């Protein structure tokens, strides 16, 4: 017999995969149990497959502290809980809330980092200020926050983001869709490498607004900092005023 045939017969009933599933069929009582089965950085599908049917047990998992190690798993659990619930979910303010949310509503008093990352639908309301990476890689849905720190709505494809106050640096980097509205001001390099979508700022914007942008629309009602539209290749920027060295095609609003 060929050695390959021997190996085929030895592994015929095994599913491909390198890690041992030691607890298949066991109940999931803690985030550690879940992490043992799916790893610390799993896909949503892997978590969804194992998440308890019982909502009380799911609530128990959400109420536990994931620390940094299990924060992604915990984020998926908040999304799954929000999707199951008819009322808005009010989880503790931690990182990765609403990770890959598809529908449902989440209300947070304030938010950590990566809130609403890769969300595809539903709604997240942050009553206070959000941390970094708010709505990163959004593909749908809406996020409303009182303010956010850096890298808000980065690489956004679709959806709607509203910041009622001020936004930090690098807002909407590399966006290829979606809409962002900032009622206050935003700091430097908003709309960097933007390819499509829109960014509306009611207040002022920092320097290098729309740096290297190739599409989309930016409108700043206040004053943009220096070098607005620096080396831009497409798209449009309109601002109430702008600093020195702005691109020639930046439009001044009346």
């Amino acid at each position, binding site marked *: 017999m060929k050695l*390959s045939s021997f*190996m085929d017969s*030895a592994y015929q009933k*095994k599913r491909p*995969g*390198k890690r041992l*599933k030691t607890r298949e069929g066991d109940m999931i009582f803690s985030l550690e149990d879940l992490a043992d089965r799916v790893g610390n950085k799993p896909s949503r599908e892997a978590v969804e497959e194992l998440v308890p049917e019982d909502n009380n047990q799911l609530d128990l998992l959400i109420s536990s502290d994931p620390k940094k190690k299990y924060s992604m798993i915990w984020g998926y659990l908040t999304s799954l809980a929000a999707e199951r619930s008819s009322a808005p979910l009010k989880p503790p303010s931690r990182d990765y809330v609403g990770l890959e949310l598809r529908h449902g509503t989440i209300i947070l008093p304030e938010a950590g980092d990566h809130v609403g990352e890769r969300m595809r639908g539903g709604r997240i309301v942050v009553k206070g200020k959000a941390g970094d990476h708010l709505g990163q890689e959004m593909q749908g849905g809406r996020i409303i926050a009182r303010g956010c720190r850096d890298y808000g709505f980065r690489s956004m494809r679709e959806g709607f983001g509203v910041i009622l106050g001020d936004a930090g640096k690098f807002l909407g980097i590399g966006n290829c869709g979606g809409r962002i509205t900032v009622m206050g001001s935003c700091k430097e390099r908003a709309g960097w490498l933007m390819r499509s979508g829109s960014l509306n700022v009611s207040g002022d914007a920092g320097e290098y607004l729309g740096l290297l942008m190739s599409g989309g629309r930016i409108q700043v009602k206040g004053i943009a900092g220096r070098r607005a539209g620096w080396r831009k290749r497409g798209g449009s920027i309109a601002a109430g005023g702008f600093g020195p060295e702005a691109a020639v095609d930046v439009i001044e609003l009346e």
Partner: protein
Amino acid sequence: MGRKDLAIGMQRVNAQLYFSIANSCLRGRAVLLYGGMGANKTTLINLLGSSFLSMDFDQVEDIMVTGHPEQTEEKIVGFLDPRQWADSSAGPTQVLWTAWAASNWKLINEINRFPSGKQNLFLEILQKRKISYAGQLCRPGDTCYFATMNPEFSSTYPLDEAILDRISACVPATQPDFMAGILLSEREKDVRDLADQLPRFTPQEFSSLPGMVAEKHLSGQVELAILCLIRDFTLCERAPFYDKTQLSSSKPSLGLCSGCHYQNNPEAICWQVDEGLSDRVRQDLRIFCRAFAFLLNRDADLEVLKAIAPYVIWHRTTPMRHALEMPPYFGDGKLAYVAGLVEKSINRTMNEREEMNRIFSRAVDGETTAAKAIEELSLFDDPIARLDFIPALEDLS
């Protein structure tokens, strides 16, 4: 019997009883029952002998040999017939064989009460179909071997590694537990009456058992897991020919592994035991898997292997003392510790070694070049890949 301490999937059985019955269904294998005095080790074997050989209990008791320092080969095996020297017409030398030597049910009672030198007598006898003495042969045929021993007492002797290797499985025999004690108190009958009540095998039925066991099929999974299990215990990067059985004065417990990157890696087994495993272990694992599958009327699968392998291995190895002394073993849970190593090896083979095993098999079958396979295998930090597969492919290329 005591508790059902052997779990095979969902089935739970008493290890002492089932290993003894399994050995009765096999030939040329030896099972050692290890435990304190009065744990019914000898009685159990004699009861089974009475049933399988369809003999009276007292007759079976008379067959066994019991260890003590004054035992000699002549008393155990046989002696030259003195009458032949008075007979002028005598032909070839005649030997009077003992009942033990001529029987195909051999119980060596209290084996560790034989002094170390006299234990060597059993090196030749165990697992053999014939016994020689003074140039004459006794051919009892296929034989079931059993042995019993106590823990170390004042008048016992340690068993040699070579004789331990010839013992297929070692099973702890515990004292009857509370429930068993109640049952024993209610029993009025003598053990001889119990022997009379047991079913009797005809000689044909008894001799047909090994054939029925051999009909059980071992899956490829089990064969592969056994191969990897033995290599996991035997391979050592620092031993001659990567073979731990070649070591004499230097051992993992004596600092051989100091500085080796496998040391203290809980996934690696090589540094956790002093001795490697011989090919006898592979044969014992295969045959006992089949025997248990036959007894329990199930497939000889990985669950059976996981359950029986610790009993086949634990007496042949010495775990690292400092690892064994940690909870939950507390220095005395050697069987449980070896069971943990066995489970680790089997799980690793089934879940993490598929890729490297397939790379190796493709290269051996000529589906890919040895050089490419060696390059791919060098990425696997696994003793089998590094010390078995790569040298084998280097020889091929």
